[in-house]
C-alpha cells in the first residue's frame, strides 16, 4: 500500500487529531496555545509536502487518491486559505472559547477539500465532499451564544445535506452508466461507446451538476448563501467563501473537465445556463445589500458564475483559466473579509457597509487593502481579477459561447456599481454621528499581516500572471493525463 502521495492529506488529518487532543491536554499553556501552533505547523508541513510531490501523477490508497499537479496546486490554495482563516481567528470569540474544536474542525474541513481535489474515484470524491461539509456545518454554528450563528449552521446543514444527496444519487447513476467508480476508467469507457443519448448518463449529469451547484452556491441553488455567510463567524465565512468554492470547482473540473470531457456537447449548455443565471442573480442581488457580509455573499454567487463559464468552455484553456481565477479569487476575497473582521471587532454593527464610513481616511492601510480587493473583484486591470475574467470569457468565446461571454462581461460591469459603492463610503463617507469613525482599536498583528499579504498577492498575481498561468496550464493538463 503506497501512502506517500497521500501524505499532505494525512498530515492535515493527523494535525486535526493533535489539535483536538491538545485542547484536552494537561496544563493551561498547552490547552491555550497548543491547538493554534499544532494547526499552523500542520498546515506548513502539508504545504511543504505538497511542493515535494509536485510532478507527474502518483496514485495512493488503491487509486482512490491521485497526487498530480492539479491536486497539489489546489492543496496549496486550500492550505493558504486555512492558514489565513487560522490567523483571522486569533481573538475571535469562537476561536478563543473552543480553540481545540475550532482548529481541529478547520483542519478536518481542509483535509476533506484536499481529498476532493485529488480524488481518483467517485467514492473518495463523495467522502471528501462530506468531510468538508460536516466540519463546516459545525463551524458555522460554533458561536452557540449567537442565534444567527445557530441559524446559519442549521440552514447550511439542511441545504448541504440536500445537495450531498443529489450529488450521491448522481454518482450512483454515473457508476451505473459507466460501470466503474474510477474516474480514469469512466473516461475510457464512455469515450469508446456512443453514450450521448443514454438516459442514465443524462440523469447522472443533471444530479451531479445540481449537487455541486449547491456546494458552489450557483443559481438556482444559492438561496442559503447570504444567510449562512452572514450568520457564520466571519473567519469561517472567509474560509467557506474561498476554500469551499475552490473545492466545488475542483470537483466540477475532475468530473466534467476530466472524466466526462468527451461528452462536452451534452453538458455544456446545462453548465452554461447555471453560470449565466449565477452571474445575473448574484450581481443584481448584491446591488441592494447594506450588509457587507451579505454583499460579499451575493458577489461570491456571481463569482461562482464566472468560474463556471470557464468549466462550460470544456477545454484545457477553460480549465486553466478556472484555476488561475480560483487562486486570484481566493486572494481577493480573503482581503475583503479581512476588512470586515477588523471592523466588526471595533463596533457593534461593524459588518454593515455604513460602519465603514470614513474608515479609509482613519486607517489608510486597511483602506488600501479594501480598495485593491474591491477593484480586483470588479475586474479592473492590471489586477488579477481582471486577467482572470478576461481569460475565462476568452475561453468561452473561443468555443463559440458568445452569449455566455457577453453575459459575464455585462455582469461584471454591473458589479462595478456595488464594489465601488463600498469604496465611496469608505473614502468619502462621513460617519452617522459626524467626525471620526468610532472606536479605533489596535488591529491584531496576524490579521493585519494576512490582509496586507492577500492584497499584495492580488496585485502580484496580476503582474506576474504569465508565471502563474504556466503553473495553471501544467495543473490543468494533469486532468487529462493518462
Amino acid at each position, binding site marked *: 500500500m503506497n501512502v506517500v502521495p497521500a501524505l499532505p492529506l494525512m498530515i492535515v488529518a493527523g494535525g486535526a487529531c493533535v489539535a483536538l487532543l491538545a485542547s484536552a491536554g494537561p496544563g493551561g499553556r498547552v490547552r491555550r496555545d497548543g491547538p493554534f501552533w499544532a494547526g499552523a505547523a500542520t498546515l506548513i508541513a502539508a504545504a511543504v509536502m505538497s511542493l515535494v510531490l509536485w510532478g507527474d501523477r502518483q496514485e495512493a490508497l488503491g487509486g482512490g487518491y491521485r497526487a498530480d499537479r492539479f491536486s497539489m496546486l489546489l492543496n496549496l490554495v486550500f492550505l493558504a486559505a486555512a492558514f489565513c482563516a487560522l490567523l483571522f481567528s486569533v481573538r475571535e470569540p469562537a476561536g478563543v472559547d473552543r480553540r*481545540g474544536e475550532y482548529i481541529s474542525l478547520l483542519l478536518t474541513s481542509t483535509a476533506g477539500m484536499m481529498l476532493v481535489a485529488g480524488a481518483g474515484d467517485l467514492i473518495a470524491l463523495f467522502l471528501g465532499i462530506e468531510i468538508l461539509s460536516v466540519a463546516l456545518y459545525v463551524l458555522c454554528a460554533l458561536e452557540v451564544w449567537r442565534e444567527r450563528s445557530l441559524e446559519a449552521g442549521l440552514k447550511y446543514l439542511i441545504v448541504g445535506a440536500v445537495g450531498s444527496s443529489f450529488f450521491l444519487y448522481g454518482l450512483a447513476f454515473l457508476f451505473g452508466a459507466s460501470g466503474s467508480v474510477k474516474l480514469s476508467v469512466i473516461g475510457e469507457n464512455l469515450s469508446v461507446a456512443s453514450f450521448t443519448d443514454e*438516459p442514465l448518463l443524462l440523469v447522472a449529469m443533471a444530479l451531479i451538476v445540481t449537487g455541486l451547484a449547491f456546494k458552489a452556491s450557483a443559481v438556482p441553488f444559492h438561496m442559503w448563501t447570504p444567510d449562512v455567510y452572514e450568520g457564520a463567524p466571519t473567519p469561517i465565512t472567509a474560509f467557506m467563501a474561498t476554500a469551499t468554492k475552490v473545492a466545488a470547482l475542483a470537483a466540477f473540473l475532475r468530473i466534467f473537465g476530466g472524466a466526462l470531457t468527451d461528452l462536452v456537447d451534452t453538458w455544456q449548455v446545462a453548465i452554461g445556463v447555471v453560470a449565466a443565471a449565477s452571474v445575473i442573480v448574484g450581481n443584481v442581488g448584491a446591488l441592494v445589500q447594506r450588509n457587507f457580509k451579505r454583499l460579499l455573499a451575493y458577489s461570491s454567487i456571481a463569482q461562482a458564475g464566472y468560474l463556471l463559464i470557464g468549466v462550460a468552455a470544456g477545454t484545457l484553456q477553460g480549465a486553466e483559466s478556472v484555476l488561475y481565477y480560483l487562486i486570484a479569487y481566493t486572494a481577493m476575497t480573503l482581503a475583503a473579509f479581512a476588512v470586515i473582521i477588523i471592523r466588526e471587532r471595533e463596533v457593534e454593527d461593524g459588518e454593515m457597509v455604513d460602519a465603514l464610513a470614513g474608515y479609509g481616511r482613519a486607517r489608510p492601510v486597511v483602506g488600501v487593502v479594501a480598495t485593491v480587493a474591491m477593484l480586483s473583484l470588479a475586474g479592473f486591470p492590471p489586477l488579477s481579477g481582471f486577467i482572470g475574467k478576461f481569460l475565462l470569457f476568452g475561453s468561452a468565446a473561443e468555443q463559440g459561447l458568445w452569449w455566455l461571454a457577453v453575459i459575464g462581461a455585462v455582469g461584471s460591469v454591473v458589479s462595478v456599481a456595488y464594489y465601488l459603492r463600498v469604496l465611496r463610503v469608505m473614502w468619502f463617507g462621513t460617519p452617522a454621528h459626524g467626525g471620526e469613525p468610532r472606536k479605533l482599536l489596535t488591529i491584531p498583528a496576524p490579521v493585519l499581516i494576512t490582509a496586507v499579504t492577500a492584497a499584495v498577492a492580488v496585485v502580484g498575481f496580476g503582474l506576474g500572471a504569465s508565471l502563474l498561468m504556466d503553473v495553471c496550464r501544467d495543473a490543468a493538463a494533469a486532468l487529462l493525463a493518462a
Partner: protein
Amino acid sequence: MELSDYLPIVVFLAAGLVVGLGILALSKVGRTKQNQVKGLPYESGILATTPVRQRFSIDFYLTAMLFIVFDIELAFIYPVAMVLRDAGATALISLLSFMFTVVVALVWVWRKGALEWR
C-alpha cells in the same frame, strides 16, 4: 438499457400515489365518528399513563450518541476481522487508523467531562 426497462419504477410510483391519494379521498367520504379512544395517543396498544412531554437529562443524549458511534465502529470491525487473513496488513492498518480517530474523539469527550453524570 432501454427506457422501457424503467417501466416497473413508474408502476411502483403510480401504485404509491394511488394508495396514498385513495386513503386521503376515502377519509372525505361518509360520516366520521369521534370517540375518546380514537383521540388517544397511539403507544403500540398500551395505554399512555404519563404525560408525553417529560423532561429528561441531556446526558442520555450524549450517552446515546457515543453508543451509536462505537456501535457503528463495531459494525466495521467485524467484517474486517472475517477477511483479515486474506486482506493482510493493509486492512489491519486501515482499521487501526480508523479506530485511532474514534479513540481520539473518546479521549476528548472524556476530558471535556461529557461522561460525568450530572
